[in-house]
């Protein structure tokens, strides 16, 4: 069964450093998403991506964040200068032909900012 994969599973970084979280969505999917979940809290939408551009983003997704699909298979989330409050689980998800479709989530990357 196809699945979304994410690497690394756990990333530890120093405050102020840049991090790149990587995702490989399901191969024939067209819509891609990033979410974050701070420990003990709900899942929060960050950004959606379609046709090589951002289609929607939340207030959380400020200038410190960027997304890219560099090679047709990977989908990355970059945080330019990490803050302590960026510590969270980051989930990537993808969905199929339409936006109103079930999303398949990856296992997540736990980001710890020290």
């Amino acid at each position, binding site marked *: 069964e196809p699945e979304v994969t994410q690497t690394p599973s756990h990333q530890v970084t120093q405050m102020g450093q840049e991090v790149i979280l990587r995702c490989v969505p399901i191969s024939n999917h067209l819509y891609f998403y990033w979410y974050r979940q701070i420990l003990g809290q709900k899942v*929060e939408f960050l950004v959606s991506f379609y046709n090589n551009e951002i289609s*929607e983003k939340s207030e959380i997704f400020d200038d410190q964040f960027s997304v890219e699909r560099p090679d047709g298979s990977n989908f990355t989330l970059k945080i330019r200068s990490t803050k302590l409050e960026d510590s969270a689980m980051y989930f990537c998800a993808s969905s199929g032909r339409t936006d*109103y479709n*079930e999303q398949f*989530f990856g296992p997540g990357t736990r980001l710890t900012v020290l």
Partner: protein
Amino acid sequence: GQQVMQIPQYQHVQEGEDFTTYCNSSTTLSNIQWYKQRPGGHPVFLIQLVKSGEVKKQKRLTFQFGEAKKNSSLHITATQTTDVGTYFCYNQGGKLIFGQGTELSVKP
């Protein structure tokens, strides 16, 4: 702005008891999706409801979408320990918003 409220926040039940979580929106929803997240896991899609008054069943799970498309419910009949987790409702129309979830614990 649009808000999706989910109640209750926590529910502890004895195995075999029923469980219901409710999702309420301040505005009309184009659709509602339900996801389950096991402890330490990632959200997994359960169902999508689109039509006013729609009811869908998956074994012991019954999902309803209100007539006004402003609320939805998930009901589990005769809970089992495998039902443990957090259940989220999710609206994918316009801003993508998760409810805060209902955490279900089941005592054997």
